[in-house]
Protein backbone atom coordinates (compact mmCIF):
# COMPACT_ATOMS: atom_id res chain seq x y z
CA UNK A 1 0.00 0.00 0.00
CA UNK A 2 1.31 3.45 -0.98
CA UNK A 3 1.97 6.05 1.62
CA UNK A 4 0.71 9.65 1.33
CA UNK A 5 4.20 10.86 0.31
CA UNK A 6 4.36 8.38 -2.59
CA UNK A 7 1.02 9.45 -4.10
CA UNK A 8 2.30 12.42 -6.24
CA UNK A 9 5.14 10.28 -7.54
CA UNK A 10 2.67 7.59 -8.49
CA UNK A 11 0.49 10.09 -10.38
CA UNK A 12 3.48 11.45 -12.32
CA UNK A 13 4.49 7.90 -13.26
CA UNK A 14 0.94 7.16 -14.35
CA UNK A 15 0.92 10.30 -16.47
CA UNK A 16 4.17 9.33 -18.18
CA UNK A 17 2.81 5.87 -18.87
CA UNK A 18 -0.43 7.17 -20.36
CA UNK A 19 1.34 9.72 -22.54
CA UNK A 20 3.65 6.99 -23.77
CA UNK A 21 0.83 4.78 -25.02
CA UNK A 22 -1.65 7.57 -25.93
CA UNK A 23 0.44 10.51 -27.14
CA UNK A 24 -2.66 12.64 -28.05
CA UNK A 25 -4.47 11.92 -24.77
CA UNK A 26 -4.19 15.50 -23.55
CA UNK A 27 -5.63 17.00 -26.76
CA UNK A 28 -8.36 14.41 -27.34
CA UNK A 29 -11.82 15.86 -27.66
CA UNK A 30 -15.23 14.83 -28.93
CA UNK A 31 -15.46 17.74 -31.37
CA UNK A 32 -15.87 16.55 -34.96
CA UNK A 33 -13.76 18.02 -37.69
CA UNK A 34 -16.01 20.50 -39.47
CA UNK A 35 -16.29 19.99 -43.22
CA UNK A 36 -16.13 23.03 -45.45
CA UNK A 37 -19.59 24.19 -46.50
CA UNK A 38 -20.72 23.39 -50.02
CA UNK A 39 -20.76 27.05 -51.03
CA UNK A 40 -17.14 27.39 -49.92
CA UNK A 41 -15.98 24.19 -51.57
CA UNK A 42 -17.60 25.06 -54.91
CA UNK A 43 -16.61 28.72 -54.75
CA UNK A 44 -20.17 30.05 -54.97
CA UNK A 45 -21.06 33.74 -54.77
CA UNK A 46 -21.78 35.32 -51.37
CA UNK A 47 -25.47 36.22 -51.14
CA UNK A 48 -24.69 39.91 -50.60
CA UNK A 49 -22.66 40.00 -53.84
CA UNK A 50 -25.40 38.55 -56.07
CA UNK A 51 -26.18 41.11 -58.76
CA UNK A 52 -29.25 41.26 -61.01
CA UNK A 53 -28.64 39.51 -64.33
CA UNK A 54 -30.10 41.14 -67.40
CA UNK A 55 -30.78 38.61 -70.09
CA UNK A 56 -31.89 39.59 -73.55
CA UNK A 57 -33.46 37.23 -76.01
CA UNK A 58 -30.43 37.57 -78.23
CA UNK A 59 -28.02 36.19 -75.63
CA UNK A 60 -29.91 32.98 -75.02
CA UNK A 61 -29.51 30.25 -77.54
CA UNK A 62 -31.77 27.21 -77.31
CA UNK A 63 -30.34 23.81 -78.01
CA UNK A 64 -32.57 20.98 -79.22
CA UNK A 65 -32.34 17.99 -76.91
CA UNK A 66 -32.15 14.70 -78.72
CA UNK A 67 -34.20 12.16 -76.83
CA UNK A 68 -32.62 8.76 -77.25
CA UNK A 69 -35.23 6.05 -77.51
CA UNK A 70 -33.23 3.80 -75.20
CA UNK A 71 -33.27 6.48 -72.48
CA UNK A 72 -37.05 6.67 -72.50
CA UNK A 73 -38.70 4.41 -69.99
CA UNK A 74 -41.89 2.48 -70.69
CA UNK A 75 -43.68 4.56 -68.07
CA UNK A 76 -43.64 7.82 -69.98
CA UNK A 77 -45.74 10.58 -68.48
CA UNK A 78 -46.30 12.13 -71.91
CA UNK A 79 -45.43 10.34 -75.19
Amino acid at each position, binding site marked *: MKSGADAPLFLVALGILISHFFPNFGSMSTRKKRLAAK*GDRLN*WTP*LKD*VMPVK*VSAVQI*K*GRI*VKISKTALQPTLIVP
Partner: protein
Amino acid sequence: MTFDFPGYELHFIQRESCGDGSEHLFTYIYKFRSPVTGYTYVLRAEYHTEDVFAIKFYCKKDKSSEYKYSKIINKGDAGNILITCAKAIPPLLKEFPLVSFGFIGSRTIDRVSGKVESYVNNQRFRVYKRIVAQKIGDITFEHLEYPEVSGYLLINRSSSGNIIAKEAAIRKMFTSSYANLPDL
Protein backbone atom coordinates in the same frame (compact mmCIF):
# COMPACT_ATOMS: atom_id res chain seq x y z
CA MET B 1 -29.77 6.59 -63.06
CA THR B 2 -33.44 5.92 -63.75
CA PHE B 3 -36.41 7.74 -62.33
CA ASP B 4 -38.94 5.01 -61.74
CA PHE B 5 -40.68 6.81 -58.91
CA PRO B 6 -44.46 6.66 -58.73
CA GLY B 7 -44.85 10.20 -57.40
CA TYR B 8 -47.75 11.37 -55.28
CA GLU B 9 -51.32 12.41 -55.89
CA LEU B 10 -51.60 15.99 -57.04
CA HIS B 11 -54.52 18.00 -55.63
CA PHE B 12 -55.85 20.95 -57.55
CA ILE B 13 -56.44 23.92 -55.25
CA GLN B 14 -57.50 26.90 -57.30
CA ARG B 15 -57.15 29.05 -60.39
CA GLU B 16 -55.63 32.39 -59.47
CA SER B 17 -55.99 35.32 -61.87
CA CYS B 18 -53.12 37.67 -62.46
CA GLY B 19 -54.28 41.16 -63.31
CA ASP B 20 -51.00 43.03 -63.31
CA GLY B 21 -51.04 43.59 -67.06
CA SER B 22 -48.03 41.38 -67.63
CA GLU B 23 -47.73 38.38 -69.93
CA HIS B 24 -48.60 36.19 -66.94
CA LEU B 25 -52.37 35.72 -67.17
CA PHE B 26 -53.33 33.19 -64.49
CA THR B 27 -51.99 30.40 -62.28
CA TYR B 28 -53.22 26.92 -61.54
CA ILE B 29 -52.22 25.99 -58.00
CA TYR B 30 -51.80 22.41 -56.86
CA LYS B 31 -50.44 20.81 -53.73
CA PHE B 32 -49.12 17.41 -52.72
CA ARG B 33 -47.61 15.85 -49.64
CA SER B 34 -44.52 13.70 -49.30
CA PRO B 35 -44.87 11.20 -46.45
CA VAL B 36 -41.08 10.76 -46.52
CA THR B 37 -40.18 14.38 -45.79
CA GLY B 38 -43.45 15.06 -43.96
CA TYR B 39 -43.85 18.31 -45.85
CA THR B 40 -46.50 19.64 -48.18
CA TYR B 41 -45.37 21.14 -51.48
CA VAL B 42 -47.07 23.78 -53.60
CA LEU B 43 -46.93 23.57 -57.38
CA ARG B 44 -47.73 26.63 -59.46
CA ALA B 45 -48.44 26.35 -63.18
CA GLU B 46 -48.31 29.94 -64.41
CA TYR B 47 -50.00 30.48 -67.75
CA HIS B 48 -48.50 33.10 -70.04
CA THR B 49 -49.29 34.54 -73.43
CA GLU B 50 -47.89 32.45 -76.30
CA ASP B 51 -49.84 29.58 -74.69
CA VAL B 52 -47.11 28.43 -72.32
CA PHE B 53 -47.09 27.32 -68.69
CA ALA B 54 -44.12 28.01 -66.41
CA ILE B 55 -43.94 25.25 -63.79
CA LYS B 56 -42.68 26.18 -60.32
CA PHE B 57 -42.77 24.43 -56.97
CA TYR B 58 -41.66 25.04 -53.39
CA CYS B 59 -42.02 23.55 -49.93
CA LYS B 60 -45.08 25.03 -48.23
CA LYS B 61 -43.18 25.74 -45.02
CA ASP B 62 -41.06 28.24 -47.01
CA LYS B 63 -44.03 30.00 -48.60
CA SER B 64 -43.19 33.33 -46.97
CA SER B 65 -39.49 33.15 -47.78
CA GLU B 66 -37.99 35.37 -50.44
CA TYR B 67 -35.83 32.39 -51.40
CA LYS B 68 -38.50 29.67 -51.37
CA TYR B 69 -37.46 28.40 -54.81
CA SER B 70 -33.78 28.32 -53.90
CA LYS B 71 -33.84 26.57 -50.56
CA ILE B 72 -32.68 22.99 -50.17
CA ILE B 73 -34.91 20.82 -47.97
CA ASN B 74 -32.39 17.97 -47.75
CA LYS B 75 -34.83 15.38 -46.40
CA GLY B 76 -34.66 13.08 -49.42
CA ASP B 77 -37.50 11.93 -51.71
CA ALA B 78 -36.48 14.25 -54.56
CA GLY B 79 -37.37 11.59 -57.16
CA ASN B 80 -41.00 11.30 -56.07
CA ILE B 81 -41.35 15.06 -55.62
CA LEU B 82 -40.05 15.83 -59.10
CA ILE B 83 -42.13 13.12 -60.76
CA THR B 84 -45.22 14.53 -59.00
CA CYS B 85 -44.43 17.92 -60.53
CA ALA B 86 -44.10 16.32 -63.97
CA LYS B 87 -47.50 14.67 -63.44
CA ALA B 88 -49.11 18.11 -63.66
CA ILE B 89 -48.44 18.14 -67.40
CA PRO B 90 -51.03 15.56 -68.62
CA PRO B 91 -54.11 17.21 -67.02
CA LEU B 92 -52.99 20.63 -68.25
CA LEU B 93 -52.40 19.21 -71.69
CA LYS B 94 -55.90 17.75 -71.65
CA GLU B 95 -57.41 21.15 -70.86
CA PHE B 96 -55.06 23.10 -73.15
CA PRO B 97 -54.09 20.73 -75.98
CA LEU B 98 -51.75 23.20 -77.69
CA VAL B 99 -49.94 24.42 -74.60
CA SER B 100 -46.15 24.38 -74.16
CA PHE B 101 -44.21 24.19 -70.89
CA GLY B 102 -41.10 25.76 -69.45
CA PHE B 103 -39.09 25.73 -66.26
CA ILE B 104 -35.91 27.16 -64.76
CA GLY B 105 -33.59 25.50 -62.28
CA SER B 106 -33.34 27.93 -59.35
CA ARG B 107 -29.96 28.81 -57.93
CA THR B 108 -29.30 26.96 -54.70
CA ILE B 109 -28.53 28.87 -51.53
CA ASP B 110 -26.09 27.24 -49.12
CA ARG B 111 -27.30 28.35 -45.71
CA VAL B 112 -24.08 27.35 -43.95
CA SER B 113 -21.76 29.53 -46.00
CA GLY B 114 -24.39 32.07 -47.08
CA LYS B 115 -23.41 31.56 -50.71
CA VAL B 116 -25.35 31.13 -53.95
CA GLU B 117 -24.51 28.99 -56.94
CA SER B 118 -24.19 30.27 -60.49
CA TYR B 119 -27.24 30.65 -62.71
CA VAL B 120 -25.43 28.86 -65.54
CA ASN B 121 -26.16 25.13 -65.81
CA ASN B 122 -26.93 24.84 -62.11
CA GLN B 123 -27.50 21.63 -60.14
CA ARG B 124 -31.31 21.78 -60.18
CA PHE B 125 -31.29 22.27 -63.95
CA ARG B 126 -28.97 19.31 -64.46
CA VAL B 127 -31.34 17.04 -62.50
CA TYR B 128 -34.56 18.40 -64.02
CA LYS B 129 -33.41 18.07 -67.62
CA ARG B 130 -32.41 14.49 -67.03
CA ILE B 131 -35.80 13.59 -65.58
CA VAL B 132 -37.68 15.39 -68.35
CA ALA B 133 -35.62 13.68 -71.04
CA GLN B 134 -36.48 10.31 -69.49
CA LYS B 135 -40.14 10.81 -68.67
CA ILE B 136 -41.42 13.11 -71.44
CA GLY B 137 -41.22 11.79 -74.97
CA ASP B 138 -40.53 13.76 -78.13
CA ILE B 139 -43.75 12.97 -79.96
CA THR B 140 -45.84 15.63 -78.23
CA PHE B 141 -43.05 18.11 -77.47
CA GLU B 142 -39.83 19.40 -78.94
CA HIS B 143 -37.28 19.61 -76.11
CA LEU B 144 -35.03 22.66 -75.92
CA GLU B 145 -32.47 23.45 -73.24
CA TYR B 146 -30.89 26.79 -72.29
CA PRO B 147 -27.91 26.03 -70.04
CA GLU B 148 -26.91 29.74 -70.02
CA VAL B 149 -29.92 30.43 -67.80
CA SER B 150 -30.61 26.86 -66.58
CA GLY B 151 -33.86 26.86 -68.50
CA TYR B 152 -35.81 24.22 -70.42
CA LEU B 153 -38.72 24.45 -72.85
CA LEU B 154 -41.13 21.82 -74.06
CA ILE B 155 -42.62 23.22 -77.26
CA ASN B 156 -45.90 21.60 -78.22
CA ARG B 157 -45.55 20.27 -81.75
CA SER B 158 -49.26 20.84 -82.41
CA SER B 159 -49.10 24.51 -81.43
CA SER B 160 -47.46 25.74 -84.59
CA GLY B 161 -46.27 24.49 -87.94
CA ASN B 162 -43.03 26.34 -87.32
CA ILE B 163 -41.40 25.17 -84.09
CA ILE B 164 -38.46 27.56 -84.52
CA ALA B 165 -40.75 30.58 -84.77
CA LYS B 166 -42.82 29.40 -81.81
CA GLU B 167 -39.69 28.90 -79.70
CA ALA B 168 -38.44 32.38 -80.61
CA ALA B 169 -41.79 33.91 -79.65
CA ILE B 170 -41.86 32.12 -76.27
CA ARG B 171 -38.22 33.00 -75.59
CA LYS B 172 -38.86 36.65 -76.43
CA MET B 173 -41.96 36.72 -74.22
CA PHE B 174 -40.14 35.18 -71.23
CA THR B 175 -37.05 37.36 -71.52
CA SER B 176 -39.14 40.53 -71.79
CA SER B 177 -41.46 39.51 -68.92
CA TYR B 178 -38.68 38.35 -66.65
CA ALA B 179 -35.93 40.89 -67.28
CA ASN B 180 -33.88 39.28 -64.53
CA LEU B 181 -34.69 35.72 -65.49
CA PRO B 182 -31.93 33.89 -63.66
CA ASP B 183 -32.19 35.98 -60.50
CA LEU B 184 -32.90 34.39 -57.16
